[in-house]
């Protein structure tokens, strides 16, 4: 039994013609992509309660923000040589960074991962809260907490313009923009190369590129 030859006509017609473009598109510098919207992922998420995202609805979880900020301010104030400006800036920045890390950077779920079969692997905690509904009470609280902190800090100190700008940009970039409903389940990607989705790179042997008249009957003998 001799080895099979590979020079046989390709008979299958791939239906989505645009997925064959493969390498012909140039990579963009910035691209906004939606994640986690496939039907099977939606189904897998709705199978069980997600305890990793339900805890933010508890009132204690709301109070803890106030308590932690309070304690943080007191601790930072104990550092010798601390002025009010730097202290408030530090509290602001640490709060914003930690809440960004927790709500908008880390994806996936630590508990009950087997129940959901990886359906939450691409979603941050913010996107998991309340199954993706917007303007729920917890989300409203989480929206206003950093704003209140910022307003309190500007009220109690007199920032020089630089620190004010730092605080304000941190607030907008780390707390306001990621929480906007327009950015729900969107990801900004930089410098993607060829996006390999369902398509694969079109190889030279793929008949599309070959001259159709070059295949003759002799190939079938």
């Amino acid at each position: 039994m001799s080895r099979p030859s590979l020079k046989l006509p390709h008979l299958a017609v791939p239906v989505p013609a645009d997925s064959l473009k493969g390498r012909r598109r140039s990579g963009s510098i910035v691209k906004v992509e939606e994640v986690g919207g496939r039907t099977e992922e939606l189904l897998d998420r709705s199978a069980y309660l997600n305890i990793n995202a339900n805890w933010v609805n508890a009132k204690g979880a709301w109070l803890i923000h106030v308590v932690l900020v309070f304690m943080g301010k007191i601790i930072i104030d104990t550092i010798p040589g601390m002025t009010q400006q730097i202290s408030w800036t530090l509290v602001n920045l640490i709060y914003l960074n930690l809440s960004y890390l927790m709500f908008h950077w880390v994806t996936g779920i630590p508990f009950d991962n087997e129940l959901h079969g990886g359906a939450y692997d691409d979603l941050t905690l913010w996107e998991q809260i309340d199954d993706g509904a917007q303007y729920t009470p917890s989300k409203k609280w989480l929206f206003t907490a950093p704003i209140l902190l910022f307003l309190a800090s500007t009220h109690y100190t007199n920032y020089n313009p630089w620190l004010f700008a730092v605080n304000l940009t941190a607030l907008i970039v780390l707390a306001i923009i990621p929480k906007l409903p327009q950015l729900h389940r969107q990801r900004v990607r930089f410098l993607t190369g060829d996006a390999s989705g369902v398509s694969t790179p079109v190889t030279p042997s793929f008949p599309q590129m070959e001259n159709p008249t070059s295949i003759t009957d002799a190939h079938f003998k």
Partner: protein
Amino acid sequence: MENSASAALEPLLSFLTFSLSTLESGFYKLPGSAVVARYVKSSHQNDPGRTILELILIIFAIRTLLQSRTRADRSGKHFIKFSEKEIDELVDEWTPEPLVQPLTEWEQKDLSSVPVIAGPNGPKPKLFSTGKTVTNLASFNFAGLAGNEQVKDRAVDTLRKYGLGSCGPPGFYGTIDVHIDFERDIAEFLGTEAAILYSQGFSTISSVIPAFCKRGDIIVADRSVNFAIQKGIQISRSTVRWYDHNDLKSLEDTLISVEKERKKRKGPLTRRFIITEGIFERDGEMVDLPKLIELKLKYKYRIILDESISFGTMGRTGRGLTELYNVPASQIDMLVGSVANGLCSAGGFCAGSAIVVDHQRINGTSFVFSASMPALLATSGSEAITYLRNNPSVLLTLQDNIRAVRAVLEKTEGITLLGHRASPIIHFCLRTQQQSLSVTPATYDYEAEERILQDIVDDAIANGVLITRAKHLRGQEMIESRPTIRIAVTAALTKKEVEKAAGVVKTSVTRILSKRR
């Protein structure tokens, strides 16, 4: 001039100052207003710019607080809210649709063209409609085991001893000793550590794939895999990358690109699988197994090989591609085969190492949730394996017959033969002026070709040869392939009979095609 302008504006200005002062006095009358005024003054800190920014923030916060809640992701975003009256109107207008739409003319014709066989199936069955005996080149009966006397006797004995039903899923009172014997026979036959038996051939591969591939794993699969494999991949929710049909260079490129992607994303190492068929059901091509194993070892993938057609037909004694290419079966991680196709019994199996097989006893969905096969089918399978072991000449006959059919059909004008020269299923499609290499679907008319092929099939049946079109679920498969007629060669017929049958097919083809022209 100025005097008249200022005179005109004067009442307006005085009105404004009056209203402002009333507002101010009214504001200070409210309790707590002094606190607010003091707060705003100290926040302002003589910097209007900051105050404006803070005001914008406050307005934004208040706006956010006042928004109402939107729907969650999973509840349909496309629900339209109807009023009660509209709902009543719609309910009154509603007439129930039939559960099944009435068949179109083509579907009706297609359905009625399926031949009904009176009596047992075999190489020469009798048609119910005409009572004539036809040569069967449509059913999968590669080694001629359909109606084999030895197998039949064993089956009758088993029926007398065990009865018919198996009473449940294999994990729950459904496993009989004959199943365990058959699994052991398959494992010994193939040379693997163990094998597990599934009761339906189609759901075998679509249970094996989700048992091992989960979300986050990577599957690299051939574009032309059969429908069962496509469904298995879809159920598994893994990331799939497709490579060009039977093109190992494309496979290698895909493997390299997957590795590059993973490195770029700095992702963790997940399980990776290559899924392909031994002989493709869609067109009869055969995969180059040694090269595949080489690639698998180089890039560290696991292979799931679907030998539904090649088990029981390839190799010296029918062990499949592993025997044909002299590759030890332990090199293939999950070897899936069909007992229904190769051994003319029913069901399928997955052979591999002991761990692979034991995992499927809990995680193979069709093993856990479907009833096990009747005892007599398991013993028929065991008997078929013994028959293949003792009569390897059957496979030589099969190969002779394949060569004979191909020789006749290759000389036929107007059709193109597909697939490997040694494949027991032979597909042929209509040949157009410009060969079907361009990928735009407009080069062939699917429906017209189907009709022509159906005419050829009907003509061949009228002349005593039973053949069939390859039936696909149009619109449900991933890629659409050109309509073909599928001939399944069998070793139960002699070379002369098979040549005669192929000659009948050839005349049918020429007759129909010349009529069309």
